[in-house]
């Protein structure tokens, strides 16, 4: 309650008033003038949202449908892109975003949400009580509803014959769960020589690199990456093993349309590789649009100032690791990623055999 209040207002000239408002006091709760504006706006926004939700549910009830809303997005038209970071997924995703009715969802990290828990934090909690434990079909049903509802809400325009390409390199640790939840979906497994991946990673995180700079300038938040080159290399190789390993697990088990794409092939003959992707995945696409997309996103069309050492677009040269990594670093990557290197790059298996 106010202890002292004084409000004075007087005219000093025609149309001009001087005023003095003075108030002092004690209060329990809000100080006068402290508004609840944002919470009212928030409550109103929620009310509108809930009204929409009720309308949708009532419509479903009238139509005799059930389950969570997934809209008109066809689960078979979801195209996952798994692998890991620095494999050229932004490039491939950008090309696949171009054709009419093809849309790319850029790194929702839904795979990281479920994969990080299932294979990491919650791995010890796989029993019947665990939220992702118990029978596969129950887990998959819940994940499926989550993914489709999220995709529908984000891209309501994707329906009918439209495709949603979900570029998920940093969510590839959850690839098996996502693929299991949407068995009819399509899958691209994009791989690249782990030594080039780590080399690119090292360049970005080193002093002056695009990742390091983004942290330095506050464009990226969170824990800054390590600065010690050996640590960057070791962590990068381990991430490759985990993320590409999970992608492979998903790829091997997936019964829907799928394709393995090597970055090196995409670089060597982009158009032919793109045609192969669409053909093997059974995706309808206008060939002229593919040609235009390939041309638009070609290396030559990236402005020169955006390319080079330390930049997001660095070399685009397979085998560049030979110049960028020290022999010790190469050995470390080869040892850590050995099972995958052997499988995907048998002819370049170790640096001793030459590249």
């Amino acid at each position, binding site marked *: 309650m106010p202890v002292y209040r004084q409000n004075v207002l007087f005219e000093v000239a025609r149309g001009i008033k001087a005023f003095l408002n003075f108030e002092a006091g004690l209060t329990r709760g809000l100080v*006068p003038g402290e508004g609840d504006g944002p919470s009212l706006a928030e409550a109103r926004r929620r009310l509108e949202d809930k009204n929409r939700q009720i309308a949708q*549910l009532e419509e479903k009830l009238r139509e005799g449908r059930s389950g969570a809303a997934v809209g008109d997005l066809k689960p078979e038209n979801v195209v996952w892109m798994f692998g890991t970071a620095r494999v050229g997924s932004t490039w491939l995703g950008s090309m696949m975003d171009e054709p009419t009715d093809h849309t790319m969802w850029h790194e929702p990290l839904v795979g990281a949400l479920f994969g990080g828990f299932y294979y990491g934090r919650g791995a010890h909690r796989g029993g019947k009580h665990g939220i992702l434990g118990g029978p596969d079909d129950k887990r998959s049903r819940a994940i499926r509803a989550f993914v489709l509802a999220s995709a529908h809400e984000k891209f309501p325009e994707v329906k009918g014959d439209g495709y949603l390409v979900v570029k998920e390199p940093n969510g590839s640790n959850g690839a098996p769960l996502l693929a299991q939840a949407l068995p009819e979906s399509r899958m691209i497994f994009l791989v690249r020589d782990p030594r080039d991946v780590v080399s690119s990673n090292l360049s970005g995180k080193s002093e002056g690199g695009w990742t390091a700079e983004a942290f330095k300038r506050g464009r990226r938040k969170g824990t800054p990456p390590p600065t010690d080159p050996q640590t960057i290399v070791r962590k990068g190789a381990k991430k490759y093993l985990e993320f590409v390993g999970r992608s492979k697990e998903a790829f091997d088990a997936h019964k829907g349309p799928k394709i393995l794409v090597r970055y090196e092939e995409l670089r060597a003959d982009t158009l032919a590789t793109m045609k192969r992707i669409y053909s093997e995945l059974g995706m309808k696409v206008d060939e002229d649009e593919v040609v235009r997309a390939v041309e638009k996103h070609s290396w030559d069309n990236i402005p020169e100032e955006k390319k080079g050492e330390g930049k997001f677009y660095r070399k685009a040269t397979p085998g560049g690791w030979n110049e960028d990594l020290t022999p010790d670093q190469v050995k470390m990557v080869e040892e850590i990623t050995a099972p995958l290197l052997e499988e995907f790059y048998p002819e370049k298996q170790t640096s001793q055999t030459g590249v």
Partner: protein
Amino acid sequence: MPLFKSRVAFQLARNARAFLYLDTGIVRGDAPPTLEVMEETQARLREQIQEARRALANRDHRISGLEKELGGYTVGAGNIAWIFGTVRTGSTWLASMMRDGHNHAMWNEPRVGELFGTFYESTAHRRDNENFVMGTHRKLVWLKSVRNFVLDSASARFPRFARDGLLVIKEPSGSIGAPILMEALPESAMVLLVRDPRDIVASALDAAREGSWAYELRGTRRREKQGLVGTAGAPIDDFTGKSQDEVVRDQASMYLRYVGNSRKAFDAHDGRKVLVRYEDLLANSLGTMKRIYSELEVEVDEEDLARIVKEHSWENIPEDEKGKGKFYRKGASGAWREDLTPDQAKVVEEITAPLLRELYPDETA
């Protein structure tokens, strides 16, 4: 235009603030509103907020009804009562008593709060990204997905759940996600179960010893077998390689995060809720249980409840399951005075100070 404008407010005591407001200047036309006018506006605003909240609760009720009518879920949001707080607060005891009620069931630590909560906290730097699945601008959208995910999972887990039943979800280890879950399922009820953090840390120290129940059964030993010990995101029961002081510090920090987030969820929740102190539950179990059900608006048979409380009493736990290094350790409050060194107690008090002051004002050193 105002020549000088100043508003100062400071806290004098709990809930009591002093303020000083000075606004002076020269204007053409109307003078700016006085504080009296502002207060009136504020009162109107408060009424509008209350009205909006009531309307929201009605909508939530309608949504719950429609979801059930559609037959998609056996467990509706209104059937759920969450137990949040942190580990070693007596949540197993409380949840077991609640499970035994007529038409009641208990979901023992699904960790759905950890699934969403830990991910959400660890991706704070991504939240402004419009593509991020849990981005700020899409919050209402993903809250709906979280809601469906919980109801879907609960219905799959409890396919023959009674229409008017109560599903108690014991989620101490998932309390980090309490704000998300309560916001996604506002019709659900919430129990915030707390205990003196010093007793919790004392209990954790006992569990951290090799050969204890947690080491052998719950955490470290099992994770060792799975080759998971020491990996990123290791659970709180993974005590491998930690000194006593590290365990004390880690557990106190965890208390601050878990109970802190539970507290946030509790304060923001407009629905049915009750704050329970372990110490009260221990001192008067039946009375506290009655209070819980009363505040959660759940009808229970008093005779049944008395029988359940008795069945789960400390005296009814077999002697060989109780004691040092066991899951049922002391069943006492304030034992930290014997178990912690003065330095350890000080560390816990410093780290958990805001919650200790609020939840245990009489026990604050």
